[in-house]
Protein backbone atom coordinates (compact mmCIF):
# COMPACT_ATOMS: atom_id res chain seq x y z
CA UNK A 1 0.00 0.00 0.00
CA UNK A 2 2.75 2.43 0.94
CA UNK A 3 4.48 1.77 -2.38
CA UNK A 4 1.30 2.51 -4.32
CA UNK A 5 0.89 5.62 -2.16
CA UNK A 6 4.36 7.05 -2.69
CA UNK A 7 4.52 6.12 -6.40
CA UNK A 8 1.19 7.80 -7.11
CA UNK A 9 1.96 10.86 -4.99
CA UNK A 10 5.35 11.28 -6.69
CA UNK A 11 3.71 11.07 -10.12
CA UNK A 12 1.07 13.60 -9.07
CA UNK A 13 3.69 16.01 -7.75
CA UNK A 14 5.66 15.71 -10.98
CA UNK A 15 2.66 16.72 -13.06
CA UNK A 16 1.10 19.28 -10.69
CA UNK A 17 3.24 22.08 -9.28
CA UNK A 18 0.56 23.16 -6.82
CA UNK A 19 0.94 20.08 -4.59
CA UNK A 20 2.85 20.38 -1.32
CA UNK A 21 3.40 17.39 0.95
CA UNK A 22 3.57 17.94 4.69
CA UNK A 23 4.43 15.24 7.19
CA UNK A 24 4.26 15.43 10.97
CA UNK A 25 7.57 13.59 11.34
CA UNK A 26 6.32 10.37 9.75
CA UNK A 27 7.49 8.64 6.60
CA UNK A 28 10.75 6.86 7.39
CA UNK A 29 11.60 4.77 4.28
CA UNK A 30 8.65 6.35 2.43
CA UNK A 31 9.54 9.96 1.72
CA UNK A 32 13.34 10.01 1.31
CA UNK A 33 13.30 10.22 -2.50
CA UNK A 34 10.35 12.61 -2.62
CA UNK A 35 12.17 14.93 -0.23
CA UNK A 36 15.22 14.94 -2.50
CA UNK A 37 13.19 15.49 -5.65
CA UNK A 38 10.98 18.28 -4.24
CA UNK A 39 12.99 20.14 -1.59
CA UNK A 40 10.66 23.16 -1.70
CA UNK A 41 7.43 21.17 -1.89
CA UNK A 42 8.02 18.68 0.90
CA UNK A 43 8.14 19.74 4.55
CA UNK A 44 8.52 17.79 7.75
CA UNK A 45 6.83 20.01 10.30
CA UNK A 46 7.81 17.89 13.29
CA UNK A 47 5.47 16.57 15.93
CA UNK A 48 3.08 19.50 15.58
CA UNK A 49 -0.17 18.04 14.24
CA UNK A 50 -2.31 20.97 15.40
CA UNK A 51 -0.03 23.66 14.02
CA UNK A 52 0.57 21.56 10.91
CA UNK A 53 -3.12 21.61 10.05
CA UNK A 54 -3.09 25.41 10.47
CA UNK A 55 0.11 25.61 8.40
CA UNK A 56 -1.53 23.46 5.69
CA UNK A 57 -4.57 25.75 5.88
CA UNK A 58 -2.42 28.83 5.24
CA UNK A 59 -0.82 27.11 2.24
CA UNK A 60 -4.20 25.96 0.89
CA UNK A 61 -5.63 29.48 1.31
CA UNK A 62 -2.73 30.62 -0.90
CA UNK A 63 -3.65 28.24 -3.70
CA UNK A 64 -1.73 25.05 -2.89
CA UNK A 65 -3.14 21.55 -2.58
CA UNK A 66 -1.66 20.03 0.53
CA UNK A 67 -1.25 16.32 1.29
CA UNK A 68 -0.79 16.11 5.05
CA UNK A 69 0.57 12.77 6.27
CA UNK A 70 0.64 11.42 9.81
CA UNK A 71 -0.33 8.33 11.80
CA UNK A 72 -4.10 7.96 11.44
CA UNK A 73 -4.52 8.32 15.21
CA UNK A 74 -2.70 11.64 15.31
CA UNK A 75 -3.78 13.04 11.92
CA UNK A 76 -7.40 12.92 13.03
CA UNK A 77 -7.80 12.76 16.80
CA UNK A 78 -4.98 14.99 18.00
CA UNK A 79 -5.98 17.86 15.74
CA UNK A 80 -9.66 17.15 15.16
CA UNK A 81 -10.73 20.66 16.05
CA UNK A 82 -8.21 22.18 13.64
CA UNK A 83 -9.36 19.83 10.86
CA UNK A 84 -12.97 20.78 11.54
CA UNK A 85 -12.57 24.55 11.78
CA UNK A 86 -9.53 25.40 9.65
CA UNK A 87 -9.89 22.85 6.87
CA UNK A 88 -13.51 21.67 6.99
CA UNK A 89 -15.27 24.97 7.49
CA UNK A 90 -13.23 26.61 4.74
CA UNK A 91 -13.66 23.63 2.41
CA UNK A 92 -9.95 23.74 1.62
CA UNK A 93 -7.79 21.48 -0.52
CA UNK A 94 -6.08 19.78 2.37
CA UNK A 95 -5.90 16.02 1.86
CA UNK A 96 -5.29 14.31 5.16
CA UNK A 97 -3.52 10.98 4.85
CA UNK A 98 -3.90 8.77 7.92
CA UNK A 99 -1.37 5.98 7.74
CA UNK A 100 -1.07 2.87 9.94
CA UNK A 101 -4.75 2.87 10.82
CA UNK A 102 -6.55 0.09 12.70
CA UNK A 103 -4.19 -2.41 14.28
CA UNK A 104 -1.28 -1.67 11.90
CA UNK A 105 1.03 -0.77 14.76
CA UNK A 106 0.13 -4.04 16.43
CA UNK A 107 2.82 -4.10 19.10
CA UNK A 108 2.28 -0.52 20.23
CA UNK A 109 -1.08 -0.77 21.98
CA UNK A 110 -4.02 1.56 22.40
CA UNK A 111 -2.02 4.77 21.90
CA UNK A 112 -1.38 3.76 18.29
CA UNK A 113 -4.47 1.65 17.50
CA UNK A 114 -6.95 3.69 15.45
CA UNK A 115 -10.60 2.61 15.40
CA UNK A 116 -12.20 6.05 15.64
CA UNK A 117 -10.74 8.12 12.80
CA UNK A 118 -13.38 7.53 10.13
CA UNK A 119 -16.20 8.19 12.59
CA UNK A 120 -14.67 11.52 13.53
CA UNK A 121 -14.02 12.57 9.95
CA UNK A 122 -17.59 11.63 8.96
CA UNK A 123 -18.85 14.34 11.32
CA UNK A 124 -17.21 17.10 9.31
CA UNK A 125 -19.50 18.52 6.62
CA UNK A 126 -17.96 18.33 3.16
CA UNK A 127 -15.23 15.87 4.12
CA UNK A 128 -14.72 13.10 1.57
CA UNK A 129 -13.47 9.87 3.14
CA UNK A 130 -11.60 7.34 1.05
CA UNK A 131 -10.55 4.03 2.56
CA UNK A 132 -8.64 2.06 -0.07
CA UNK A 133 -8.41 -1.72 0.26
CA UNK A 134 -5.62 -2.65 -2.14
CA UNK A 135 -2.88 -0.91 -4.15
CA UNK A 136 -5.29 -0.36 -7.05
CA UNK A 137 -7.76 1.44 -4.81
CA UNK A 138 -4.91 3.39 -3.22
CA UNK A 139 -3.80 4.78 -6.56
CA UNK A 140 -7.42 5.57 -7.43
CA UNK A 141 -7.99 7.26 -4.05
CA UNK A 142 -5.00 9.57 -4.43
CA UNK A 143 -5.94 10.59 -7.96
CA UNK A 144 -9.50 11.26 -6.80
CA UNK A 145 -8.30 13.21 -3.77
CA UNK A 146 -6.40 15.59 -6.02
CA UNK A 147 -9.39 16.02 -8.35
CA UNK A 148 -11.93 16.65 -5.59
CA UNK A 149 -12.29 20.33 -4.69
CA UNK A 150 -12.28 20.31 -0.89
CA UNK A 151 -11.00 18.31 2.04
CA UNK A 152 -10.39 14.57 1.78
CA UNK A 153 -9.38 12.01 4.38
CA UNK A 154 -7.49 9.01 3.00
CA UNK A 155 -7.15 6.18 5.47
CA UNK A 156 -5.02 3.12 5.10
CA UNK A 157 -3.51 0.39 7.18
CA UNK A 158 -0.77 -2.16 6.82
CA UNK A 159 -3.15 -4.86 5.71
CA UNK A 160 -4.40 -4.76 2.15
CA UNK A 161 -1.23 -5.00 0.11
CA UNK A 162 -2.45 -7.85 -2.08
CA UNK A 163 -4.00 -6.83 -5.41
CA UNK A 164 -7.67 -7.78 -5.51
CA UNK A 165 -8.77 -5.55 -8.37
CA UNK A 166 -8.16 -6.23 -12.03
CA UNK A 167 -6.63 -3.53 -14.19
CA UNK A 168 -9.41 -1.52 -15.74
CA UNK A 169 -11.92 -1.85 -12.88
CA UNK A 170 -13.98 1.33 -12.96
CA UNK A 171 -14.32 2.81 -9.47
CA UNK A 172 -16.46 5.84 -8.70
CA UNK A 173 -16.53 8.03 -5.59
CA UNK A 174 -19.52 7.10 -3.42
CA UNK A 175 -20.27 3.88 -5.24
CA UNK A 176 -19.80 0.23 -4.31
CA UNK A 177 -17.97 -1.98 -6.79
CA UNK A 178 -18.89 -5.62 -7.28
CA UNK A 179 -15.78 -7.76 -6.88
CA UNK A 180 -17.38 -11.20 -7.14
CA UNK A 181 -20.92 -12.20 -7.87
CA UNK A 182 -22.94 -14.57 -5.74
CA UNK A 183 -26.58 -15.53 -5.50
CA UNK A 184 -27.57 -14.58 -1.97
CA UNK A 185 -26.69 -11.87 0.56
CA UNK A 186 -24.10 -9.17 0.11
CA UNK A 187 -20.90 -8.45 1.90
CA UNK A 188 -19.75 -4.86 1.64
CA UNK A 189 -16.16 -4.28 2.69
CA UNK A 190 -14.12 -1.14 3.12
CA UNK A 191 -10.39 -0.55 3.44
CA UNK A 192 -7.71 -3.07 4.32
CA UNK A 193 -10.26 -5.78 5.16
CA UNK A 194 -10.83 -6.29 1.42
CA UNK A 195 -8.40 -9.19 1.17
CA UNK A 196 -9.81 -10.88 4.27
CA UNK A 197 -13.37 -10.48 3.00
CA UNK A 198 -12.30 -11.82 -0.39
CA UNK A 199 -10.81 -14.91 1.25
CA UNK A 200 -13.89 -15.32 3.45
CA UNK A 201 -16.23 -15.27 0.46
CA UNK A 202 -14.01 -17.81 -1.37
CA UNK A 203 -14.10 -20.04 1.69
CA UNK A 204 -17.90 -19.89 1.85
CA UNK A 205 -18.08 -20.85 -1.81
CA UNK A 206 -16.59 -24.20 -0.84
CA UNK A 207 -19.70 -24.69 1.32
CA UNK A 208 -21.91 -23.76 -1.67
CA UNK A 209 -22.78 -20.39 -0.15
CA UNK A 210 -22.25 -17.75 -2.79
CA UNK A 211 -22.19 -14.22 -1.44
CA UNK A 212 -21.90 -11.03 -3.50
CA UNK A 213 -18.75 -9.20 -2.53
CA UNK A 214 -18.74 -5.43 -2.91
CA UNK A 215 -15.84 -3.14 -2.12
CA UNK A 216 -16.64 0.35 -0.91
CA UNK A 217 -13.50 2.49 -0.97
CA UNK A 218 -15.58 5.61 -0.25
CA UNK A 219 -17.11 6.03 3.19
CA UNK A 220 -18.38 9.57 2.55
CA UNK A 221 -20.22 10.70 0.50
CA UNK A 222 -22.25 7.58 -0.31
CA UNK A 223 -24.56 7.32 -3.27
CA UNK A 224 -27.78 6.28 -1.53
CA UNK A 225 -29.43 5.05 -4.70
CA UNK A 226 -26.56 2.65 -5.38
CA UNK A 227 -26.85 1.26 -1.84
CA UNK A 228 -30.65 0.98 -2.08
CA UNK A 229 -30.20 -1.12 -5.21
CA UNK A 230 -28.20 -3.64 -3.16
CA UNK A 231 -30.73 -3.44 -0.32
CA UNK A 232 -33.52 -4.23 -2.78
CA UNK A 233 -31.75 -7.38 -3.92
CA UNK A 234 -30.63 -8.98 -0.66
CA UNK A 235 -32.17 -9.49 2.74
CA UNK A 236 -28.89 -9.95 4.58
CA UNK A 237 -26.13 -7.41 4.24
CA UNK A 238 -22.81 -7.76 6.04
CA UNK A 239 -20.45 -4.81 6.37
CA UNK A 240 -16.83 -5.58 7.20
CA UNK A 241 -14.27 -2.97 8.23
CA UNK A 242 -11.33 -2.42 10.58
CA UNK A 243 -12.94 0.32 12.66
CA UNK A 244 -15.13 0.63 15.70
CA UNK A 245 -18.56 -0.69 14.65
CA UNK A 246 -19.80 2.77 15.63
CA UNK A 247 -19.28 5.55 13.16
CA UNK A 248 -17.85 4.20 9.92
CA UNK A 249 -19.23 2.32 6.89
CA UNK A 250 -21.42 -0.08 8.89
CA UNK A 251 -23.12 2.88 10.52
CA UNK A 252 -23.45 4.74 7.23
CA UNK A 253 -25.12 1.75 5.52
CA UNK A 254 -27.37 1.21 8.54
CA UNK A 255 -28.46 4.85 8.43
CA UNK A 256 -29.35 4.59 4.75
CA UNK A 257 -31.22 1.34 5.40
CA UNK A 258 -33.21 2.69 8.34
CA UNK A 259 -34.31 5.69 6.29
CA UNK A 260 -35.50 3.62 3.35
CA UNK A 261 -38.36 1.18 2.93
CA UNK A 262 -35.91 -1.72 2.90
CA UNK A 263 -36.45 -4.81 4.99
CA UNK A 264 -32.80 -5.78 4.75
CA UNK A 265 -30.92 -6.50 7.94
CA UNK A 266 -27.46 -5.03 8.31
CA UNK A 267 -24.86 -6.94 10.29
CA UNK A 268 -21.86 -4.84 11.20
CA UNK A 269 -18.66 -6.81 11.44
CA UNK A 270 -16.02 -4.52 12.85
CA UNK A 271 -14.06 -3.82 15.99
CA UNK A 272 -16.41 -4.08 18.99
CA UNK A 273 -16.87 -0.94 21.06
CA UNK A 274 -14.16 -1.80 23.57
CA UNK A 275 -10.48 -0.88 23.85
CA UNK A 276 -7.98 -3.58 22.94
CA UNK A 277 -5.58 -3.68 25.85
CA UNK A 278 -3.17 -6.31 24.59
CA UNK A 279 -0.41 -6.61 22.03
CA UNK A 280 0.17 -9.27 19.38
CA UNK A 281 0.49 -9.87 15.66
CA UNK A 282 -1.91 -8.08 13.33
CA UNK A 283 -3.83 -11.32 12.48
CA UNK A 284 -4.03 -12.11 16.22
CA UNK A 285 -5.49 -8.69 17.10
CA UNK A 286 -7.90 -8.75 14.18
CA UNK A 287 -9.08 -12.25 15.08
CA UNK A 288 -9.46 -11.21 18.71
CA UNK A 289 -11.87 -8.56 17.47
CA UNK A 290 -13.80 -10.89 15.17
CA UNK A 291 -11.93 -10.01 12.00
CA UNK A 292 -10.55 -13.25 10.52
CA UNK A 293 -11.83 -15.51 7.78
CA UNK A 294 -13.13 -17.98 10.36
CA UNK A 295 -14.80 -15.45 12.61
CA UNK A 296 -16.33 -13.48 9.73
CA UNK A 297 -17.72 -16.65 8.22
CA UNK A 298 -19.01 -18.01 11.45
CA UNK A 299 -20.85 -14.70 11.99
CA UNK A 300 -22.27 -14.86 8.48
CA UNK A 301 -23.34 -18.51 8.83
CA UNK A 302 -24.95 -17.98 12.24
CA UNK A 303 -26.84 -14.97 10.95
CA UNK A 304 -28.05 -16.74 7.81
CA UNK A 305 -29.14 -19.83 9.77
CA UNK A 306 -31.00 -17.73 12.35
CA UNK A 307 -32.88 -15.78 9.73
CA UNK A 308 -33.91 -18.63 7.49
Amino acid at each position, binding site marked *: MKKAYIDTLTALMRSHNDIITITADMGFSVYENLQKEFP*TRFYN*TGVTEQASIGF*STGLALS*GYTVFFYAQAAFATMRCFE*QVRLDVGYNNLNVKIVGVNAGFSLNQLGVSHFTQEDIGLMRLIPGMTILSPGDPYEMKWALLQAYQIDGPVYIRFSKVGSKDIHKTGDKLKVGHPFLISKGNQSALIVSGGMLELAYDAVKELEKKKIKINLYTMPTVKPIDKIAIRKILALYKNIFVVEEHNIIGALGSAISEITSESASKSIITRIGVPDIFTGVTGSIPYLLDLNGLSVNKINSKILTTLTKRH
Partner: protein
Amino acid sequence: MTQKQFFKHKRTSLITSEIDNLKKTAFDVRKKVFSMILTAHASHLASAYSIVEVLVYLYQKVLHLNPSKPASPNRDRFILSKGWGVSALYVLLSKKGFFSKKLLNEYCKDGSKMIGIATRNGIRGIEATTGSMGHGLPIGVGLAKAMKLQGKKNRTVVLISDGECDTGSTWESILLAAHHKLDNLLVIVDYNKWQSFGRTNEVLNLEPLINKWKAFNWHAEMVRDGHDFYQIDKAFKKCFVVRDKPQVIIAHTIKGKGLSAIEDRNEWHYQTPRENEIKVAKLEGLI
Protein backbone atom coordinates in the same frame (compact mmCIF):
# COMPACT_ATOMS: atom_id res chain seq x y z
CA MET B 1 2.30 55.35 -2.52
CA THR B 2 4.91 53.09 -4.13
CA GLN B 3 6.52 50.32 -2.12
CA LYS B 4 9.80 52.32 -2.05
CA GLN B 5 8.14 55.49 -0.81
CA PHE B 6 6.25 53.43 1.71
CA PHE B 7 9.37 51.99 3.29
CA LYS B 8 11.08 55.41 3.28
CA HIS B 9 8.04 56.77 5.03
CA LYS B 10 8.22 53.86 7.47
CA ARG B 11 11.69 54.82 8.61
CA THR B 12 10.75 58.24 9.89
CA SER B 13 8.79 58.82 13.09
CA LEU B 14 5.15 59.74 13.14
CA ILE B 15 4.53 63.48 13.24
CA THR B 16 2.09 65.03 15.70
CA SER B 17 -0.68 65.58 13.16
CA GLU B 18 -0.49 61.91 12.12
CA ILE B 19 -0.75 60.83 15.74
CA ASP B 20 -3.72 63.13 16.22
CA ASN B 21 -5.45 61.58 13.21
CA LEU B 22 -4.82 58.06 14.49
CA LYS B 23 -6.16 59.02 17.91
CA LYS B 24 -9.27 60.46 16.33
CA THR B 25 -9.83 57.26 14.35
CA ALA B 26 -9.33 55.18 17.49
CA PHE B 27 -11.93 57.26 19.29
CA ASP B 28 -14.39 56.88 16.40
CA VAL B 29 -13.85 53.12 16.42
CA ARG B 30 -14.59 52.93 20.15
CA LYS B 31 -17.77 54.96 19.68
CA LYS B 32 -19.07 52.72 16.93
CA VAL B 33 -18.08 49.51 18.77
CA PHE B 34 -19.96 50.72 21.85
CA SER B 35 -23.13 51.33 19.88
CA MET B 36 -22.87 47.97 18.04
CA ILE B 37 -22.37 46.00 21.23
CA LEU B 38 -25.08 47.89 23.07
CA THR B 39 -27.61 47.39 20.27
CA ALA B 40 -26.82 43.70 19.88
CA HIS B 41 -26.68 43.04 23.65
CA ALA B 42 -23.35 41.49 22.87
CA SER B 43 -20.24 40.74 24.91
CA HIS B 44 -16.47 41.32 24.45
CA LEU B 45 -16.57 45.12 24.62
CA ALA B 46 -13.42 45.20 26.75
CA SER B 47 -11.62 42.73 24.44
CA ALA B 48 -12.26 44.98 21.46
CA TYR B 49 -11.18 48.14 23.29
CA SER B 50 -7.92 46.48 24.26
CA ILE B 51 -6.74 46.26 20.62
CA VAL B 52 -8.12 49.45 19.07
CA GLU B 53 -4.82 51.35 18.76
CA VAL B 54 -2.93 48.38 17.31
CA LEU B 55 -5.71 47.74 14.79
CA VAL B 56 -5.93 51.40 13.80
CA TYR B 57 -2.16 51.57 13.32
CA LEU B 58 -2.19 48.38 11.23
CA TYR B 59 -5.00 49.50 8.95
CA GLN B 60 -3.81 53.11 8.61
CA LYS B 61 -0.05 52.63 8.46
CA VAL B 62 0.99 49.05 7.78
CA LEU B 63 -1.24 46.80 5.74
CA HIS B 64 -1.22 47.00 1.93
CA LEU B 65 -4.81 46.25 1.03
CA ASN B 66 -7.12 47.15 -1.76
CA PRO B 67 -10.71 47.19 -0.45
CA SER B 68 -12.09 47.05 -3.98
CA LYS B 69 -10.03 43.89 -4.64
CA PRO B 70 -10.14 42.15 -1.26
CA ALA B 71 -8.79 38.88 -2.70
CA SER B 72 -5.86 40.42 -4.57
CA PRO B 73 -3.02 37.85 -4.43
CA ASN B 74 -0.45 40.50 -3.53
CA ARG B 75 -2.26 41.85 -0.50
CA ASP B 76 -0.87 41.70 3.01
CA ARG B 77 -2.70 39.27 5.23
CA PHE B 78 -4.01 40.16 8.65
CA ILE B 79 -5.42 37.53 10.99
CA LEU B 80 -7.23 38.57 14.12
CA SER B 81 -6.51 35.43 16.09
CA LYS B 82 -8.32 36.83 19.11
CA GLY B 83 -11.42 36.75 16.98
CA TRP B 84 -13.70 37.81 19.81
CA GLY B 85 -12.45 41.40 19.40
CA VAL B 86 -13.86 41.45 15.88
CA SER B 87 -16.29 44.34 16.42
CA ALA B 88 -13.35 46.79 16.29
CA LEU B 89 -12.03 45.10 13.15
CA TYR B 90 -15.43 45.31 11.45
CA VAL B 91 -15.52 49.05 12.11
CA LEU B 92 -12.06 49.54 10.61
CA LEU B 93 -12.83 47.36 7.58
CA SER B 94 -15.93 49.40 6.95
CA LYS B 95 -13.95 52.66 7.37
CA LYS B 96 -11.45 51.37 4.79
CA GLY B 97 -14.28 50.65 2.37
CA PHE B 98 -14.41 46.84 2.48
CA PHE B 99 -18.13 47.01 3.10
CA SER B 100 -20.81 49.59 3.85
CA LYS B 101 -21.39 51.14 7.25
CA LYS B 102 -24.91 49.73 7.17
CA LEU B 103 -23.55 46.21 7.54
CA LEU B 104 -22.17 47.15 10.96
CA ASN B 105 -25.76 47.39 12.18
CA GLU B 106 -26.12 43.69 11.44
CA TYR B 107 -23.61 42.80 14.16
CA CYS B 108 -24.83 39.66 15.97
CA LYS B 109 -28.36 39.95 14.58
CA ASP B 110 -30.48 36.89 13.71
CA GLY B 111 -29.22 35.27 10.52
CA SER B 112 -26.40 37.79 10.06
CA LYS B 113 -22.93 36.96 8.78
CA MET B 114 -21.51 39.66 11.05
CA ILE B 115 -20.73 37.05 13.69
CA GLY B 116 -19.31 37.95 17.10
CA ILE B 117 -16.14 35.97 16.38
CA ALA B 118 -14.04 36.58 13.25
CA THR B 119 -15.39 34.06 10.74
CA ARG B 120 -14.29 33.62 7.14
CA ASN B 121 -17.78 33.44 5.68
CA GLY B 122 -17.74 35.99 2.91
CA ILE B 123 -17.40 39.18 4.97
CA ARG B 124 -14.83 41.08 2.92
CA GLY B 125 -11.49 41.54 4.64
CA ILE B 126 -11.81 38.68 7.12
CA GLU B 127 -9.00 36.27 6.23
CA ALA B 128 -9.50 33.44 8.72
CA THR B 129 -11.94 31.90 11.12
CA THR B 130 -10.50 32.28 14.59
CA GLY B 131 -11.61 32.68 18.15
CA SER B 132 -11.07 29.08 18.98
CA MET B 133 -7.78 29.74 20.72
CA GLY B 134 -4.52 29.01 19.02
CA HIS B 135 -5.80 28.83 15.43
CA GLY B 136 -4.64 32.16 14.01
CA LEU B 137 -0.89 31.82 14.29
CA PRO B 138 -0.58 28.37 12.65
CA ILE B 139 -2.61 29.63 9.68
CA GLY B 140 -0.49 32.79 9.56
CA VAL B 141 2.68 30.69 9.42
CA GLY B 142 1.25 28.81 6.42
CA LEU B 143 0.32 32.07 4.68
CA ALA B 144 3.77 33.54 5.29
CA LYS B 145 5.45 30.37 4.02
CA ALA B 146 3.30 30.44 0.87
CA MET B 147 4.32 34.08 0.27
CA LYS B 148 7.97 33.05 0.45
CA LEU B 149 7.43 30.09 -1.89
CA GLN B 150 5.63 32.32 -4.37
CA GLY B 151 8.39 34.96 -4.19
CA LYS B 152 6.03 37.63 -2.90
CA LYS B 153 7.18 40.64 -0.93
CA ASN B 154 4.03 41.08 1.12
CA ARG B 155 3.60 40.43 4.81
CA THR B 156 1.46 38.41 7.20
CA VAL B 157 0.42 39.98 10.50
CA VAL B 158 -1.29 38.03 13.27
CA LEU B 159 -2.75 39.56 16.42
CA ILE B 160 -3.03 37.05 19.25
CA SER B 161 -4.24 37.31 22.83
CA ASP B 162 -2.21 36.57 25.93
CA GLY B 163 -4.61 33.71 26.71
CA GLU B 164 -3.68 32.13 23.40
CA CYS B 165 -0.10 31.92 24.65
CA ASP B 166 -1.39 29.04 26.80
CA THR B 167 -2.12 26.87 23.78
CA GLY B 168 0.14 24.20 22.40
CA SER B 169 -0.68 25.03 18.79
CA THR B 170 0.58 28.59 19.31
CA TRP B 171 3.92 27.35 20.61
CA GLU B 172 4.13 24.67 17.90
CA SER B 173 3.76 27.39 15.31
CA ILE B 174 6.25 29.64 17.07
CA LEU B 175 8.77 26.83 16.53
CA LEU B 176 7.69 26.36 12.91
CA ALA B 177 7.90 30.04 11.97
CA ALA B 178 11.41 30.43 13.38
CA HIS B 179 12.57 27.20 11.75
CA HIS B 180 11.40 28.51 8.37
CA LYS B 181 12.98 31.95 9.06
CA LEU B 182 9.72 33.70 8.15
CA ASP B 183 10.80 37.33 8.35
CA ASN B 184 7.59 38.28 6.54
CA LEU B 185 5.58 37.28 9.62
CA LEU B 186 4.81 39.72 12.42
CA VAL B 187 2.87 38.82 15.55
CA ILE B 188 1.40 41.19 18.09
CA VAL B 189 0.50 39.84 21.52
CA ASP B 190 -2.32 41.82 23.10
CA TYR B 191 -1.03 41.49 26.65
CA ASN B 192 -3.90 42.86 28.74
CA LYS B 193 -3.20 40.34 31.52
CA TRP B 194 -6.72 38.95 31.63
CA GLN B 195 -7.90 35.62 30.34
CA SER B 196 -11.30 34.02 30.52
CA PHE B 197 -11.39 33.23 34.23
CA GLY B 198 -8.70 35.38 35.81
CA ARG B 199 -5.37 37.19 35.68
CA THR B 200 -2.88 35.54 33.35
CA ASN B 201 -0.21 35.38 36.05
CA GLU B 202 -2.64 33.64 38.39
CA VAL B 203 -4.21 31.24 35.89
CA LEU B 204 -1.07 30.22 34.01
CA ASN B 205 1.92 32.47 34.31
CA LEU B 206 3.43 33.47 30.97
CA GLU B 207 6.42 35.35 32.32
CA PRO B 208 9.09 35.97 31.24
CA LEU B 209 7.05 36.16 28.04
CA ILE B 210 9.40 38.20 25.85
CA ASN B 211 12.33 35.98 26.76
CA LYS B 212 10.37 32.91 25.75
CA TRP B 213 9.82 34.29 22.24
CA LYS B 214 13.48 35.33 22.03
CA ALA B 215 14.56 31.86 23.11
CA PHE B 216 12.45 30.46 20.27
CA ASN B 217 14.55 32.52 17.81
CA TRP B 218 12.10 35.35 17.23
CA HIS B 219 12.96 39.03 17.14
CA ALA B 220 10.95 40.47 20.04
CA GLU B 221 9.97 44.05 20.85
CA MET B 222 8.15 45.29 23.91
CA VAL B 223 5.62 48.12 23.85
CA ARG B 224 5.07 49.37 27.37
CA ASP B 225 1.86 51.19 26.46
CA GLY B 226 0.01 49.44 23.68
CA HIS B 227 -2.34 52.40 23.37
CA ASP B 228 0.42 54.91 22.56
CA PHE B 229 0.82 55.32 18.81
CA TYR B 230 4.33 56.70 19.13
CA GLN B 231 5.51 53.57 20.95
CA ILE B 232 3.58 51.24 18.63
CA ASP B 233 5.12 52.95 15.62
CA LYS B 234 8.65 52.63 16.99
CA ALA B 235 8.25 48.90 17.63
CA PHE B 236 6.81 48.18 14.18
CA LYS B 237 9.62 50.06 12.49
CA LYS B 238 12.23 48.08 14.39
CA CYS B 239 10.54 44.87 13.30
CA PHE B 240 10.33 45.86 9.65
CA VAL B 241 14.11 45.88 9.20
CA VAL B 242 14.65 42.43 10.73
CA ARG B 243 15.76 39.73 8.29
CA ASP B 244 15.63 35.93 8.64
CA LYS B 245 13.54 35.96 11.80
CA PRO B 246 9.84 36.32 12.47
CA GLN B 247 9.02 39.23 14.76
CA VAL B 248 6.78 39.63 17.76
CA ILE B 249 5.60 42.77 19.53
CA ILE B 250 4.48 42.21 23.09
CA ALA B 251 2.03 45.07 23.55
CA HIS B 252 1.07 45.80 27.16
CA THR B 253 -2.53 46.91 26.97
CA ILE B 254 -5.49 47.57 29.22
CA LYS B 255 -8.58 45.49 28.79
CA GLY B 256 -11.49 47.86 28.21
CA LYS B 257 -9.18 50.84 27.51
CA GLY B 258 -11.08 54.01 26.66
CA LEU B 259 -14.16 53.65 28.86
CA SER B 260 -13.22 54.21 32.50
CA ALA B 261 -16.17 52.20 33.82
CA ILE B 262 -14.88 48.96 32.30
CA GLU B 263 -11.10 49.40 32.22
CA ASP B 264 -9.08 46.47 33.53
CA ARG B 265 -12.19 44.61 34.71
CA ASN B 266 -12.67 41.10 33.43
CA GLU B 267 -16.46 41.02 33.70
CA TRP B 268 -16.52 43.18 30.54
CA HIS B 269 -15.34 40.15 28.61
CA TYR B 270 -18.89 38.89 29.14
CA GLN B 271 -21.36 41.63 29.97
CA THR B 272 -23.37 44.08 27.91
CA PRO B 273 -23.20 47.74 29.02
CA ARG B 274 -26.03 48.77 31.33
CA GLU B 275 -27.26 52.02 32.88
CA ASN B 276 -24.04 52.94 34.70
CA GLU B 277 -21.73 52.19 31.76
CA ILE B 278 -24.03 54.08 29.40
CA LYS B 279 -23.92 57.08 31.75
CA VAL B 280 -20.12 57.00 31.87
CA ALA B 281 -19.91 56.45 28.12
CA LYS B 282 -21.96 59.63 27.61
CA LEU B 283 -19.72 61.59 29.98
CA GLU B 284 -16.65 60.33 28.14
CA GLY B 285 -18.06 61.17 24.73
CA LEU B 286 -18.52 57.61 23.45
CA ILE B 287 -22.23 58.13 22.88
